[in-house]
Structure formats: C-alpha cells, structure tokens
C-alpha cells in the first residue's frame, strides 16, 4: 500500500513534468518522423536535452552516470505517462545499442573507469553505439566467430568482418566480440572489446534489405585498434559478456520495452472494417479473416497480459528474466501475424512499394511486413529461443551440439 502510494505520487510528478516539458509540436509523433518532411529537429533536440538532464533517458541507471536512479516500477510509470501524453523517450533509439544492451552490460561487468567514460554519453543520447557480434559464417552459432584481436602492448589489433552491425555507419563507438586466443575451443578464447568507429582501420558498408534501405551494415576491421582499457570483462572470458548482452537483447525484444513513439496506431479491427466492410450485424464481411484477426487480437492480449503477470510475479525485478525467450517468440508471432493480416485486409492496396496510388499507412504496412521478418531471425532466431526454452527452462538435453 505504502509503495503504491509513493508510486502514485511519482506518477503524478512525472505527468506534470511531461506536460510542462514535452514540446507540443512533437505530440503523437515518433521515431521515423524525420521522413515525414516536417523539420522538428530543434524541438526533438530540446526534448532530448530535457530528458537527459532529468536522467530519464536511462531512468534506472545510477544518477552518477547520467541516469535517473529510479526503480523499474518508476521507469514503467514514466513510460505509461509518456504514452498517455502522446510523448516518447527517443534516447534509446538514437543511441543505437547504447541504452538497451551496452549500458546494462557495462553496469554489470564494467570497471569504474569504463562506466565513467562511457555511460554518461549514452544516457544523454549523444553517443551512439553499435555492436559487432555476428559474422557471415557464424549466424546463430555465434561462438564460431573468426575476427581476430592480437595483443600489441597497450592495445589490440583487430582483423575480420562483422555483419548486421546495426547503425555502424552512424555510430561513434562499437562493442565487438573477437577471438583473442585461437588455440582454445570455441567459446573460450573470446573477448569483448570496445573501440571508436572513427579510425582508419574500420570500414562500414550499409546492407540493402528486402524492405529497402536498412540501418544494418557490414563492418570490416583492417588493423583496427581497441585500447586495452576498453576490454570489457576478463581476457578470453568474453563469452560471459556476450551471453549477458544477448539476454539484454532478448529482453528488449519482448514487447515490454520503452515508449519510443507517441503515435497511436489504428486498431487492426477498425482498419479491417474500413477496407472490408461489415454485414448487417456489424460483423466483418470476411468471416474467415474475422476469425484470424480475432485469434491475433487474443494472442496480442495474452502477450500483454503475460508481460504484466511476469512483471507482477517478479515484483518489478525483470531486467533479465528466464521468460525472455518465451516473450521474444510470442512478440514475434504477434507482430508478424499483425503485419500479414494488415496486408491481407488491404487487398491490392497492401501490395504497394511506392507512389501516389498508396497511402503512407499502406506503404508503411508493406515495409513493416517485410522488415518484421527479421524479428524471428535476429537476437537469437525463433529456433534458438526454442533451444533455450527447451534446455534452460524445461531442462531437456541440449540438441544443437553433436552427440
């Protein structure tokens, strides 16, 4: 009761602060609005500065590193109030992997020096981070990576290729997993280093995806340099760091994340009524589609309720939860099904690539549908999550290893 009263007071305070500080011009907008043609850059930046000053870009991080020093419950309250006000916290988006993955892992494994040097820039939304994890021949099997880092006194020299480095071409820093001892078996001999992207030995090449231009890059290290003081965790024990990173990644993909957009999408059933029409009883005219939309809405509701339930059971402490694999797969199904159903209900209008004949919403649906196919691939594929559930939660034997 006491806790809850405190939380309500905090919520009231948050609501008031948002009301006073969130620029009216940004209301109902979200990330991606850069494309709308309106120039909201100055207001966006002002909003970022205010969020950062308050420590609400990373509300649960310690105050000394630019965070808000708040509890998970308080952070959720902020999010809910942002959504309610048509506002958003865009710092997680503009720092790439900074807020969602690098920061939490630095908090877990970083030295005081590393935290002090790296966290404030992330929390304020000024330094964007990318991650160099996957390699062309090591997809789900991350541990078979071959990018090498050779000891050169006070720094390492990196050579190799990374892929799917999201935002590599616009990031200032990169966290990379590299092989520091080629003689040890796969998961040993791996280390995690951090390096600036603005150096001669680093080259990035954007990847064009099926949905068009993408934030993803191939990243090439040719004698790239990472300082030894930017080695995260012990030498040759980088696998532990990577595992934690991936847990944070899963967590960020469970659909329980932060409010990154103030836009309220039209519910799919309303969209469907518009395109498909209704019968005399008000039911969607396409009964077959109606059933599938209903199933989808039930799945979505069940997913949302599960996030709420797991949060309640964990009494607010769900930063790294065993349920993340479940929620990640469930979130993927919900999102991918929604995209397929939206495409279907739009009929021919859901098949546009560009041009005046299609509305922005229609074109956006198609791009989202295509882009969303990656949800079951990245951050540990649907199959890898099932391996994790099977082994780590259910206690069944490992099935990916030989024998």
């Amino acid at each position, binding site marked *: 009761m006491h806790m809850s009263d405190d939380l309500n007071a905090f919520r009231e305070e948050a609501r008031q602060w948002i009301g006073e500080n969130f620029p009216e011009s940004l209301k109902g907008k979200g990330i991606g609005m850069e494309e709308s043609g309106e120039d909201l850059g100055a207001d966006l930046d002002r909003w970022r500065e205010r969020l950062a000053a308050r420590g609400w870009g990373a509300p649960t991080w310690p105050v000394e590193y630019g965070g808000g020093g708040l509890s998970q419950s308080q952070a959720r309250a902020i999010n809910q109030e942002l959504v309610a006000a048509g506002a958003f916290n865009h710092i997680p988006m503009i720092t790439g992997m900074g807020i969602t993955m690098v920061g939490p892992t630095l908090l877990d494994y970083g030295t005081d020096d590393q935290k002090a040097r790296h966290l404030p820039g992330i929390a304020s939304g000024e330094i964007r981070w990318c991650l160099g994890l996957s390699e062309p021949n090591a997809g789900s099997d991350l541990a078979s990576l071959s990018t090498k880092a050779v000891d050169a006194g006070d720094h390492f020299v990196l050579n190799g290729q990374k892929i799917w480095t999201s935002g590599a071409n616009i990031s200032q820093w990169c966290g990379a997993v590299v092989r520091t001892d080629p003689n040890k078996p796969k998961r040993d001999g791996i280390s995690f280093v951090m390096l600036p992207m603005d150096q001669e030995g680093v080259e990035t090449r954007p990847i064009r995806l099926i949905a068009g231009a993408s934030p993803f890059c191939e990243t090439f290290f040719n004698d790239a340099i990472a300082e030894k003081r930017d080695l995260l965790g012990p030498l040759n024990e980088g696998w532990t760091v990577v595992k934690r990173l991936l847990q944070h990644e899963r967590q960020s993909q469970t659909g329980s994340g932060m409010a990154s957009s103030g836009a309220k999408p039209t519910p799919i059933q309303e969209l469907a009524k518009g395109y498909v029409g209704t019968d005399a009883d008000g039911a969607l005219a396409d009964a077959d589609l109606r059933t599938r939309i209903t199933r989808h809405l*039930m799945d979505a509701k069940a997913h949302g309720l599960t996030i*709420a339930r797991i949060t309640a*059971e964990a009494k607010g402490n769900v930063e790294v939860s065993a349920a993340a694999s*479940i929620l990640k797969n469930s979130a993927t199904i919900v999102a991918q099904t929604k995209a397929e159903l939206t495409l279907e209900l739009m009929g021919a209008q859901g098949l546009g690539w560009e041009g005046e004949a299609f509305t922005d919403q229609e074109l956006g649906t198609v791009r989202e549908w295509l882009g969303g196919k990656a949800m079951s691939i990245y951050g540990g594929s649907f199959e890898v999550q099932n391996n994790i559930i099977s082994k780590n939660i*259910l206690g*069944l034997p490992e*099935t990916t290893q030989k024998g």
Partner: protein
Amino acid sequence: MAALTEEQSMLKDQASAWATEQAPVQKFREMRDSGAAEGFTPATWESMVDMGWTGILIPEAYGGSDLGYLTFGVVLEQLGRQLTASPLFASALVGASAVILGGSDGQKQQLLPKVVDGSEILTLAVDDGPRHAPAAIAMKAERTGDGFSLSGTKHFVVEGMTATTLIVAARTGGASGSMDGLSLFLVPGDAPGLSRARLATVDSRGYANVTFDGVSVGADALLGEADQGGVLLDAVLDRARAGLGAEMLGTAAQAFDMTLEYLKTREQFGRVIGSFQALGHRAAGLFTQMELARSCAEAALQAIDADTDDVAQMCSLSKARVGDFLHEMSNQLIQIHGGIGMTDEFDAGFYLKRARVLEALYGNQAFHRDRYARLLGF
C-alpha cells in the same frame, strides 16, 4: 501464478496437497469403474465442504469466506490437475454466483448457507439444445395466476443428477435469438413435473438432460427481475467460464508436466526422446502457449474480482485461449506418449476426454472468438 496473497498461496498448497493425496486421478478412475451415476465420490465432496471451499465466494454474512474468484480459481486449477470430480464448480461457483448477483436477501439467506454446508447442490440449466447458445433459448415460462409454469428440456446440465436446486433460464418475453426477455428461476430438484435423464458422457461425470413438464413455481422463484435475466445470465456464465479457464489450465498443466517427465525418461534409439530437437521444440512451443494461457486465465478471474468493465472480454479470452491450449496439449499428451498413451490403463485418456467436455461447456473456442470480436465491435 499471479502474485498471490499469502492466503491464496496457502490455499493453493492446501488444495495441491489434498488433491494429490486424497483425490488423485486414481480416485477418479475408481469412481468411473464403479459406474457411479452421480459422477463423483461423495466422500471427496464432503472433504471439500469440510475444508470450506464451498464458501470461498460467499459473503461472510451467509457463512462464507468471501475470498473472491482468483482464490476460487487457485483451488480449481489444482483440482483440474488431478481431474478431481465434485459439484464444487456447479454449486459453489456457478450457482452461488447466480444467487449472489441476482438473489434477494431472502433467497440468499435460504440458499447460500446450505451451499456452504453442502446440503444444497445448485446448478445452472441453460441450453435448450446440444450447442451452447443462451440467446437461442426458446423454452417458455408462462405466467400463471401466482407464478410461472415451465415447460421444455434443458440439455447437458452439469451435476444434473444430483443438483437439489436448479437455476433455470427461460423465456418470459422477447424472441429466440435475443438475450432480452429471459428470466432465471430457482426450481427445486424435486418439483413435480421435473425429470432427469442421465447422460453417460465421455468424461464419466454427472450430467443430465432435465425436462420440465409444466413445472409450477411461485413468483418468489424468480431470481432477479422478470425479462431482465439476460444480463444476469451473461454475468453468471462469465463467472462460470472464468472458473472453467482455471480448471482447464490445471488439467492442461498436468498434461504438460506428465509429457515433460516422459520426454526426460523415455528412451528410444539410445537417447531420451526429449533430446530429439523436434520434440524439444514442440515442448518449448507448448510451454510458451501455457504461459500465455495462464495469463489469460488469471486475468479473467482478476477482472471479476476487480469488477472492471472488460469482464466479458476477459472471460471469453480465457475460455478460448486456455481451451485452445488444452485442446492441443491433450492431443500431444497422447501423441508423445505413443502406444502407452492409448491404453486405458494409463491416465492420458482421462485428460483427453475431460478436455473436450471442458472445451464445450458454456461455449467452445469458436463461440468465444465470435463473442470476443462482437465485444470489440467487429
């Protein structure tokens, strides 16, 4: 589980221990083999009464403990795990809900204490035909001088062989197809003109088709207002559905646990079969569905307790979503156990048979998907 109160946690442990030790599926097997027409073991039922579970929903003024629906669900889930058969659900949840929500103080005073002490077994008699369709009720209650005369047959009445008072939905106005014009009546099981035909069902429990041949009841038999029973009926049915959601979750969870255990111990081709990735992934998928289903089941019960305005949606969500999981899980229970799962000697068949009855009761998945869509306005 939801974040349970200490009281709920204790009750859960009590129910789990009691069901596992005192009323396990082996007891159900014995009851089935005996061919008992009532579909439950009287001693089992008496124990439940003694433990006070019949009073979980009932206000303290009428001798109950007024702990709410989530608490009742906690118990039902444990009973569902062991397929424990009893009139607890029909009487202390469905019937009691009807009286609590619609009854006059006199009716409450008359019935509720007896529900608590087990001397009354209530049940709801709703459908005129084999498929759940409350709006389609055509059975008439004709007004007579001092009351009503009921004629017609109610199908698949839960605990229909043992109920002492039936809550009967009949039409006093309106036309079949509408929830308007319905009324609910309290009819004593021994009323002249009332007859019961036992249904020997696949789940071996106590159901009956109950025929009313000009059964006369007084004006005081009306539960709630005449012609306005549709809203009350809907509310009672939703509470029934939320209860079934909890029981179905327990039944499915037990089926999951049995299957997981088998995956870990049964060997084929020199390995435990759970090490075959196709089965490991199937188990992972089922576990994911179970977690999602649990959230729906609990949310429906919580919505009733909190009296939110989305109770109807949440109850249809629970019945449909847990029903889908139970359907799939009961099939996989057999499939993964292989030949042994097909034998009557093993318990899997009991879970499969019970699953289909639970799915059908008070609206199957298709019924509740349709209802959910209508509630969302499309």
